[in-house]
């Protein structure tokens, strides 16, 4: 793995104000993303997993600066994305692209798919004919023959085909980093596999780096080199995909892996490992946010929040269960 990260995210924070009443006064904050830090290295796939509402999609939009963060930094290739001028931002956007979750809402119903893909190129001042040409070439690459589909409208395509168009649109600018926000969640299982294989091929071909967001642990395990587990806007555990799958440390990660449907009858689930909905991010629990659903919660979990600490090579977890070891080791020194 290369040493310098392509993407460096530090202490990223976004709280959405809930306004109400005649004066539109803020009466509460939704803590969508609350102090998230991570690195993404060239040509790797970082999987981000978590329940719905844990801030995954907000994080994707923060990375691409589609919404402005409240605090923290995002560095792409060493350049500060948050502080970039409008001109720099336009350049940066060519290098980092986003694939959206909803294959229906993410395509303009009034544009042919060829025009939808070509639009991104046109925006950057390329001549119309060349933009068309590039769009057609890329549509062909993602498996949609431009002669058959180029002049079709989105409503004439299936969900899987639309998602291929979305991928083509994201890739037509030749980005280095692709943020995929639940790219296969809306698709059938068989179509999911096709799209995942396409993404894997494209990644190898174009030396891409992926940030792959999903709530589906099976998908995440399949595509990722490293995984980041999010809970209520915070990172609770991060490590290689293998390490997390074989030895998940955080009680939440353990519960997630335990609840992922297994095809092995020996691994039949006796009882649900996790019950109840995640708490409301408007008023998250004090201390560790997971403590309300955690089987191992201790008194100190309610008073202060555990920080991420290393439990293995490139394996960090934010839980007091593992800090206990450190405390016990301390006197021996």
């Amino acid at each position, binding site marked *: 793995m290369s040493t310098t990260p392509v993407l460096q995210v530090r202490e990223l924070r976004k709280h959405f104000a809930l306004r109400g009443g005649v004066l539109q006064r803020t009466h509460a904050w939704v803590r969508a993303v609350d102090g998230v830090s991570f690195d993404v290295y060239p040509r790797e796939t970082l999987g981000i997993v978590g329940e719905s509402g844990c801030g995954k999609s907000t994080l994707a939009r923060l990375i691409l600066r589609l919404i402005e963060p409240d605090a923290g930094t995002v560095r792409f290739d060493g350049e500060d994305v948050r502080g970039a001028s409008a001109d720099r931002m336009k350049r940066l956007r060519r290098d980092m692209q986003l694939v959206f979750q909803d294959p229906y809402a993410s395509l303009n119903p009034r544009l042919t798919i060829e025009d939808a893909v070509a639009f*991104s190129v046109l925006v950057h001042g390329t001549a119309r004919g060349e933009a068309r040409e590039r769009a057609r070439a890329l549509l062909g690459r993602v498996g949609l023959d431009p002669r058959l589909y180029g002049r079709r409208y989105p409503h004439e395509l299936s969900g899987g085909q639309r998602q291929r168009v979305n991928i083509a649109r994201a890739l037509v600018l030749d980005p280095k980093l692709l943020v995929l926000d639940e790219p296969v969640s809306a698709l059938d299982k068989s179509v999911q596999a096709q799209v995942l294989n396409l993404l894997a091929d494209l990644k190898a071909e174009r030396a891409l780096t992926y940030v792959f967001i999903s709530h589906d642990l099976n998908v995440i395990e399949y595509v990722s080199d490293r995984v980041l587990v999010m809970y209520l806007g915070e990172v609770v555990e991060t490590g290689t995909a293998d390490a997390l799958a074989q030895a998940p440390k955080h009680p939440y990660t353990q519960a997630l892996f335990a609840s992922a449907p297994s095809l092995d009858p020996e691994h039949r689930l006796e009882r649900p490992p996790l019950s109840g909905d995640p708490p409301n991010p408007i008023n998250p629990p004090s201390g560790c946010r997971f403590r309300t659903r955690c089987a191992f919660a201790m008194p100190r979990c309610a008073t202060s929040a555990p920080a991420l600490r290393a439990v293995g090579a490139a394996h960090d977890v934010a839980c007091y269960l593992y800090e206990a070891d450190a405390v016990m080791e301390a006197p021996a020194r």
Partner: protein
Amino acid sequence: MAVTALPRDLDAVVGAPMSYWRTVAWRLGRDPATLVAAAVLALIALSALLAPWLAPYDPSAGSIRLRLAPVGAPAHVLGTDEQGRDMLTRLLWGGRMTLVAGLTPVLVAFVVGTALGVLAGYIGGLTNTLVMRTMDIFYAFPAVLLAIAISGALGPGLPNTLISLSIVFVPRVVRVAESATVQVKSLEYIAAARASGAGVRAIVRHHLLANVLGPILVFASTQVSLSIILAAGLSFLGLGVTPPAAEWGLMLNTLRQSIYVNALVPALPGLAIFITSMAFNLLSDGLRDAMEIRA
């Protein structure tokens, strides 16, 4: 990617994809009620346009001897009014006034309202509050009352009628344009366009307008019949077109007292207003149905 030889004219094989507006036109062409309404409107518009050549008499030249001739009178097919002026002539000339007074305000409202509504909806925040609350002030008054109040303040005459009716219709269009914009703005393809580095102007032009103009157009078309009735109503009240010009609402007013002498002739301008606004209503209904295309 294996691109093998495909027939050159693929569209002939799989059926040419139709653009949205072509599909709408195709669907309109297969709707008999809408076609009839459109034909009636075309006839009315054409006869109004060609009034100077079609009308058999001078619209303001009358004769005391020939007052209130009944429908079917020799030389006056539709009779004469209370000053002996030929009714057919005045109906043709009156159509020009009524159509102009009815269509212009909606057209103005469509352009101004769309601009303001899209602006308010896309920018949001304080701009939105300022624009929308200002519109609400006008919206608070009933349409007829507002039109009468403004026309009353400005005085009679065609230009003032156009101004007052435009003020009535702009806020309505702004509302529709703003809500359509806010809804489309939150869709992912707008975010995708932003992610590709597109500026506000490119996004509004290529992604937003194409998706909000439809609903705004449908709404505006429903307002035409109301505008025609309001324009005629203002003239009827003496706040619109002034005599001796021919205008359907004004004709209805001056012929009012003659209804006991000859019931049919005074009813003619009313009938003309009714048919025209009805035809506009049917047309806008058809347009709405034809534009409701969902995948």
